[in-house]
């Protein structure tokens, strides 16, 4: 009798739990996505308030900005209404204040993140680390037509990149300074990985522009494995829509990979980098992946 009782109890419990699950699931579906939900996976970097507006700055990982590619997310809140601005026209300008001069770095425009109401994003490719006396400052600008609605700025720390090499600056054979930053793969996997990189050149100290229609040859190698490489890699070519270079890299195992690079201009003249041969085991420009 008691056994039957216990069984019955469990059965009732099961029904209740199931019912709860079903109701909670259906509740999820109609739930309104809040501004907080949209940044729940991001790490806050800074909050800058000026006048009625607050700028909330986020990035995907914790820690400082680093030399190379940095993705930045922004929300803007109107403190008067308490609402997040959903159609802000945002722009920004990075500037490094050095003791003897100042300069900018390659950076993108700011665009709305797809499928969100309040989130904007863009990137910087910082080209130098800050130190105690030399710092980066980023000015954010919220405009409506010709009217500046809010303009804020903050100082950020840019650390030297200590991990694997994902950014290279070099002087090309054409005597132009180039800045090359790896975006993808951010989480490399064994098999075929999409590669995305940005290539900028320096026009002057304050102007950096994306380079179009070059080719970036890739040659992934494992120095630990007699410079083993993989076949069927796809060199990076320019995609005008994203203004980035895209290709594919094949990784045959986990571990440390050196992605050797050769940058060629639109007429296939090599600007930087060397092909891997029996005697040349690495190019002078490369990215590193480890997973």
């Amino acid at each position, binding site marked *: 009798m008691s056994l039957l009782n216990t069984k019955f109890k469990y059965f009732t419990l099961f029904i209740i739990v199931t019912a709860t699950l079903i109701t909670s699931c259906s509740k999820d579906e109609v739930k309104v996505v809040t501004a907080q939900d949209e940044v729940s996976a991001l790490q806050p970097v800074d909050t800058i308030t000026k006048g009625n507006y607050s700028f909330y700055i986020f990035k995907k990982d914790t820690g400082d900005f680093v030399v190379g590619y940095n993705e930045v997310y922004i929300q803007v809140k109107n403190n008067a209404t308490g609402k997040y601005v959903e159609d802000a026209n945002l722009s920004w300008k990075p500037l490094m204040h050095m003791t003897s001069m100042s300069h900018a770095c390659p950076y993108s425009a700011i665009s709305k993140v797809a499928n969100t109401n309040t989130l904007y994003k863009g990137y910087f490719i910082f080209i130098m680390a800050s130190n105690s006396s030399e710092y980066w400052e980023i000015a954010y600008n919220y405009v409506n037509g010709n009217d500046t609605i809010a303009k804020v700025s903050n100082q950020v720390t840019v650390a030297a990149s200590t991990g694997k090499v994902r950014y290279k600056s070099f002087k090309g054979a054409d005597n132009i300074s180039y800045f090359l930053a790896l975006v993808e793969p951010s989480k490399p*996997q064994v*098999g075929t990985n999409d590669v995305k990189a940005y290539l900028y050149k320096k026009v002057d100290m304050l102007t950096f522009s994306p380079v179009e229609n070059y080719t970036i040859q890739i040659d992934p190698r494992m120095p*630990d*494995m007699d410079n*083993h490489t993989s076949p069927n890699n796809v060199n990076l070519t320019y995609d005008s829509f994203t203004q980035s270079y895209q290709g594919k890299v094949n990784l045959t195992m986990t571990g*440390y990979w050196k992605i050797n690079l050769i940058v060629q201009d639109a007429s296939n003249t090599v600007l930087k980098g060397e092909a891997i041969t029996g005697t040349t085991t690495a190019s002078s420009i490369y990215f590193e992946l480890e997973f």
Partner: protein
Amino acid sequence: MNKRILYAGIGLFSLQFAYSQQKTDSVRNLCLKEVIIIGKTGLGSKNEPKPMSSVDEYMEQQDRINLIKRGSYAWEPTINNMASERTSVTIDGMKIFCACTDCMDPVSSYVEVINLNKMHIASGIGGNPYATNSIGGSLDMKLYKAGFHKENVSASVNSGYETNGHYRILGGSLAYSNPSFYSNSGVFVRKSDDYRAGGGEEVQFSQFQKVNLMSNFGLRLSGNRAVEASVIYDVATNVGYPALTMDVKSAKGLITSLSFTKEELSPVFSKWETKLYFNTITHIMDDTKRPNVAMHMDMPGKSKTAGFYSTLQGRKTRHNFLLNLDSYYNQSLAEMTMYSKNPDEKPMFMYTWPDVRTLNTSLFAEDKYQFTARKFLQVSARLAVQHDRIRSDFGLSTLQIYYPGMSRFQNRLLWNVAAKYHYYLKNIQVKVGGGYGLRAPSSSEAYGFYLFNSFDNYDYLGNPQLKNESSWEGNLAFSATLGKLNVSLEGSCFYLNNYIIGKPDNSLTHMTLNASGVKVYRNLDHATILTSDLTVKQSFADYFIWTNKASYSLGRDDHNRALPLIAPVSYSSSLSFNRKQVYAELKLQGAAKQYKYSADYGEDQTPAYLIFGASAGYDFHLKTYNPKLKVGVENLFDRKYSTYSDWNNISRKGRNYYINLIINLL
């Protein structure tokens, strides 16, 4: 070869055959290509110079079988010069697949002589209902079962010692039989240190040890039915492979089966056996004992197989037929983790076998049609469906780098047909046969990922796009007896289309440090393999037999270049004396220089060699125990030599004295 029934008793068990054996003689036994009786006392034991031989050494005595040796343990049998991919090795009809990507653990390494009753060797396509994907030949190792007999208990202790390598052998077994129940169990241990090559040089990393446990049970039920079960657990540890760059920490095999048999179902159907089986093999390699390892690696592998077969035998008028439905599911998984010398770097991991799942189902039919008492025709056919699946996403995506868009699945339809005509005249026997068959690529050939082959120093990449390999086979056997002289000549030739072999691909880079490059498995348009054996046996002076053997093989690819691992001309001659309890033998054995070695496939020339041996045995007839004593010497003149099938030319054993002692306690 047909007539060679080699009674190689190791004196473990009682005299009787298992009941199933008794039923299968008559015409069937005439057709067995080759049967080596191992686990039987009495009659034959005097003729076996070294009963405590390993299974490998037993196989080596057989025509058509050669063994690829990577050390002193776990030799890989080849039949008609064809290795594991082209041959089938089964244990009591059970499919077992090795768990090592480097063939360090052929199926035969998971059994012991104590487990076996006989080996059934079939050359070429036909002759074995349980052989799948085999075109070169097959080997079915029949387990020893005490059988249903009048009540009997037997126990024995087997021991052996060999001076070279301080090789110790010890085993014990116990068997009980009665008309409705039997059980036999045994334990067997082998342990050897490094052996010395001819001249005295120690061959480092040639040590091994292994423990084998086995148990069989049988229960006879009413209505001619019986249930039988068997378990083998075999563990080899600390096995050195001097020819390879790493050793084996452990190789474990658990082999289990349960079978149901019904006999005399009807006047037509004489026997119906259905067996369910499961086996699991784990293989863990070890490079930690080697000096100057460039990169430490972990390379574990596992292979699990579950399957069944159902065999129906019958006879009607002049027909003697057999039907077999057979299915197995195998999982083969092997991984490799490499550790950089730089401790800050993450380990490099990959699957060398990407968790390959193979489901193979086949139907086999065989009929022997007896024209007259001296003439019969044996025909067989097999139809099989094989479904492969790569279970590991990780492994699939690495292979897809090389084969963009390759599917996770693969289906292959495989079949073969064979026929053989047997003709027995007074003193002459003739057999003429032929066949055609297909085999699917092995796991390594289809899906292997950067498997390093130290033989030609290449990394091997599997190729899922391989076509099935096919073989046209013709064979002829002739034997004549003139008084006390017997001459027999046998030959087989194979014309293989889409022959699968690794070919260098210069567009790929190797992975293994200092490898010469990468080879990818390809289908050659064709290849030809020919094997032949001549045996001349002369008996004289009542107690003496003089046996001479010679064999010749040939292997050619589609550009008429030599294929690798084809035996050179080899020969042996032995003179044996056998009178009552005394047995003695002198033997010489050698091979000619390997003229047709395959430089194109990474082989070098093996020089000629000639070695001598002698053995003697005595069966004591004491009141109770009847011990059998065998002593002998191998490589008497301590020649330093290696054979064509010694991986990387490692030297064979130098002079070796041995003693085997078998005591039947009950």
